[in-house]
């Protein structure tokens, strides 16, 4: 072992190629956009999943099929649709949303919502009928029943939110189109996320620096997963 260690020259890591301020601002934009998109997505998806989980109606399977299809919707297409909506010529043109974070949140909301809804629905449907019945029999209101269901299905719902977040923060197609990958002249990101910054580096053939940013993205997703899993375990202890 020591012989090998001595024979191999110590490979010096390449110097970090970016201004820290630049990277922090990119991380900031990524988390702001994807975080808010997921908050809004969850606020819409969870009630829909609960409603669908609790009721039976004709065409329910068809609706589920549509939601599942939404999970595979290409982000570039979503980006184009949002661009048409917010463009100066589009229905929301008056709001001046093109190349803003708000437009990016809109497109990531559209991307993440089907994933969170579909996986939450699976989790909610998996909660035993008798648990729900018990809550109902014990005099619970609809809200109580919903809360009990959410508590029972919390792992699945957490997975749903993480899947939605993963889809949002890792996509490049839509945020590039509606956000424009803008950083100001002094090197502070306005609508540049980690993924569009990676794309920018790759476009110029700077694959090493692109990989550095890819590593940062991976670490962030890992940390957020760890935090959410930890929260879930805390719930078990109670």
């Amino acid at each position, binding site marked *: 072992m020591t012989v090998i260690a001595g024979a191999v020259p110590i490979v010096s890591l390449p110097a970090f190629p970016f201004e820290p301020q630049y990277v922090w601002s990119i991380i900031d934009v990524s988390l702001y956009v994807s975080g808010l998109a997921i908050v809004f997505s969850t606020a819409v998806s969870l009630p829909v999943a609960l409603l669908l989980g609790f009721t039976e109606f004709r065409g329910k399977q068809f609706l589920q099929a549509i939601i599942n299809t939404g999970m595979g919707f290409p982000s570039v297409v979503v980006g184009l649709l949002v661009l048409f909506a917010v*463009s*100066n*010529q589009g229905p929301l*043109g008056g709001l001046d949303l*093109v*190349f803003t974070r708000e437009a990016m949140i809109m497109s990531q909301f559209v991307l993440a919502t089907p994933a969170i809804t579909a996986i939450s629905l699976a989790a909610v449907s998996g909660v035993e009928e008798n648990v729900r019945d018990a809550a109902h029999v014990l005099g619970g209101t609809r809200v109580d029943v919903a809360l009990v269901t959410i508590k029972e299905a919390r792992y699945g719902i957490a997975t749903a939110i993480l899947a939605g977040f993963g889809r949002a923060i890792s996509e490049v197609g839509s945020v590039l189109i509606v956000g*424009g*990958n*803008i950083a*100001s*002249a*002094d*090197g502070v990101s*306005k*609508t540049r996320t980690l993924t569009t910054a990676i794309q*920018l580096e*790759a*476009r*110029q*053939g*700077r694959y090493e620096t692109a990989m550095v940013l890819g590593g940062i993205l991976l670490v962030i997703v890992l940390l957020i997963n760890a935090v959410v899993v930890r929260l879930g375990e805390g719930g078990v202890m109670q």
Partner: protein
Amino acid sequence: MPIQRRTFLAAAGTGAVAGLAGCSQILGGNDQTAGVAGETLTLTTTTSTYDTGLLGELNGPFEEMYGVSVDSVAQGTGAALETARNGDSDVVMVHARSLEDEFMRNGHGVNRRDIMFNDFVIVGPEGDPAGIQGMASATEAFTTIANSESMFVSRGDNSGTHTKELLIWEQAGVEPGGDWYQETGTGMGEALNIANEQGAYTLSDRGTYLSQRSEIDLVILVQGPIEGGPETLANPYGIMAVNPAVHDVNYDLSMAYIGYITSPQAQDLIDGYRANGEQLFFPRALSEDPDFQQYVPEGWSSNATSG
């Protein structure tokens, strides 16, 4: 104590506002708004101006001078013009005169100015299987590549470089196609990498090639006009304001930007800009002699349109 401080802040704030209002009056602005300060200019442009770092160098002083921010969106010439066509940008800086002229003719752009130029070069593997090294004509080089069916990588993305490439094929009378001709649909940097991997020829702007030269084995086989090559390979950059009669845009600020970019200050910055010790762009906005052709589509004359 906190209340006193707040009162003080309020008083100071009022004083500052009054002072600023006074300034703007001196500068000729009205009471409500101090000129364009605080506004945002959206510039759509090509990857070559952005990726070489030139825009960052140019925009800093402009932002400082006017107290505004410039949002530069690097898209490639075709996409940059399309964004402007939808009224989503205020000003466009691109490098494909034929597309610029079309944009102007359709009424989307006004006040076109020449900014700067560099040139295209034909690069390829050192072995040069088609044997185009040192040819004095770009069309001859392209014809030779096509006849020998040597690998050629095309941007295929409606960019300024792609437009130039298609123009050369057209002039050469060759319809490119077949296994040897590959459209990548990527930026110049990636296209150079792909050509490098495959030992293929490609057309590149000199700036992007120079900034990437250390990482690839491709060499310049046909020079552009800067190094005495054919004029066909010239690569002029132009800037246009989006027509405020057609779109809801920040016209004042875009004209201020065009004024700045074509000013001696910005032209000097372009002249002095170096990447890896090489000059990438040559200023062209200022000349002692009139250059009317920059304001109108190529070949335009008042006689031709009045009939």
